[in-house]
């Protein structure tokens, strides 16, 4: 990879990508693939699908770099988070969710398997209650809690105002707390 390209900021790389610069594109991809994979994975909960989404998003950018309009004063990452998020949500709507109970059936009688069961049960439970949340609450939580975006950045990605994001986060966490409280009492603490 071109060292000079890797030193450029996103805006400069995008200008070069618009001129057809492969190295600039490679730098941008290497710089951001993990973060965009992470947000895609949180939405679709499947590694291969998340990889396909991120690849699809970057290929669209390569084919149509003019779609990124620097004059709009939006950070590239904010804009691309929105692209990946929309692709992820579309993907999830098209695909039926996998049954979460599959993991729980993996238990056998060997020593130590109880802890494994509890761990898997808790994860499955958490996934279940998370996926039951309204889509926008999930998204706000994914962006702010799991991806570490500020509330304002998440608001920009979602195209809503700051107060609305904060309200979504509060409702999401309150609901999760209530639902997990009772359920986790039934599932003893397992190995983390």
């Amino acid at each position, binding site marked *: 990879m071109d060292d000079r390209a890797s030193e450029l900021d996103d805006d400069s790389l995008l200008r070069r990508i618009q001129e*057809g610069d*492969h190295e600039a*594109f*490679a730098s941008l*991809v*290497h710089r951001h*693939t*993990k973060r965009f*994979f*992470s947000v895609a*994975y*949180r939405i679709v*909960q499947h*590694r291969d699908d*998340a*990889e396909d989404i*991120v*690849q699809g998003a*970057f*290929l669209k950018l*390569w*084919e*149509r770099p003019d779609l990124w309009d620097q004059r709009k004063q939006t950070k590239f990452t904010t804009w691309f988070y929105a692209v990946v998020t929309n692709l992820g949500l579309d993907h999830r709507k098209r695909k039926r969710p996998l049954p979460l109970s599959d993991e729980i059936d993996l238990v056998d009688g060997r020593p130590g398997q109880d802890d494994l069961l509890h761990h898997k049960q*808790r*994860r499955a439970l*958490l*996934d279940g209650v*998370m996926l039951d949340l309204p889509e926008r609450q999930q998204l706000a939580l994914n962006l702010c*809690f*799991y991806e570490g975006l500020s*509330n304002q950045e998440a608001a920009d990605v979602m195209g809503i105002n700051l107060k609305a994001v*904060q309200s979504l*986060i*509060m409702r999401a*966490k*309150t609901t*999760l*707390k209530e639902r*997990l409280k009772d359920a*986790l009492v039934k599932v003893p603490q397992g190995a*983390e």
Partner: protein
Amino acid sequence: MTMDAEQFRECLLIHGADVQRWPEEIRRAGIEALDRSLECRSMQEECRQFEAILRSRAFEAPSPDLAFRIVSAAWRRERKASPGVIEFLAACFQDLRLPAPVLTAAAVLILGVVIGLLLPTEPVPADSESAEVQTFLDATEAL
């Protein structure tokens, strides 16, 4: 600004258990609330435990070669081509409500003029052409 327990609870939900990472304008009030209120400290501890549960959610790392695969796939793909000359001329004339044969004739005429203008007035010497090919070959060999 003084923060009561209810405001502290809301801030915990919105900004998380680590008060040091709260926005600057409410951070000091949050720290003061923790200093003076056992209830706030208890809420913070509960929030920490809750966040630990949320963090235990399953996550898989991407394939190590994902970025390379994306770059390779992009290089194999053609970018959306710019419109060709004929398409460009068609687009220029599409708003004029003229019969199709007239439009075609006009496009061909303009294309002919453009080609005529672009053609060199003198033949390119064979030596010059082969020199350009050689330069290209040298350059690709060096890669």
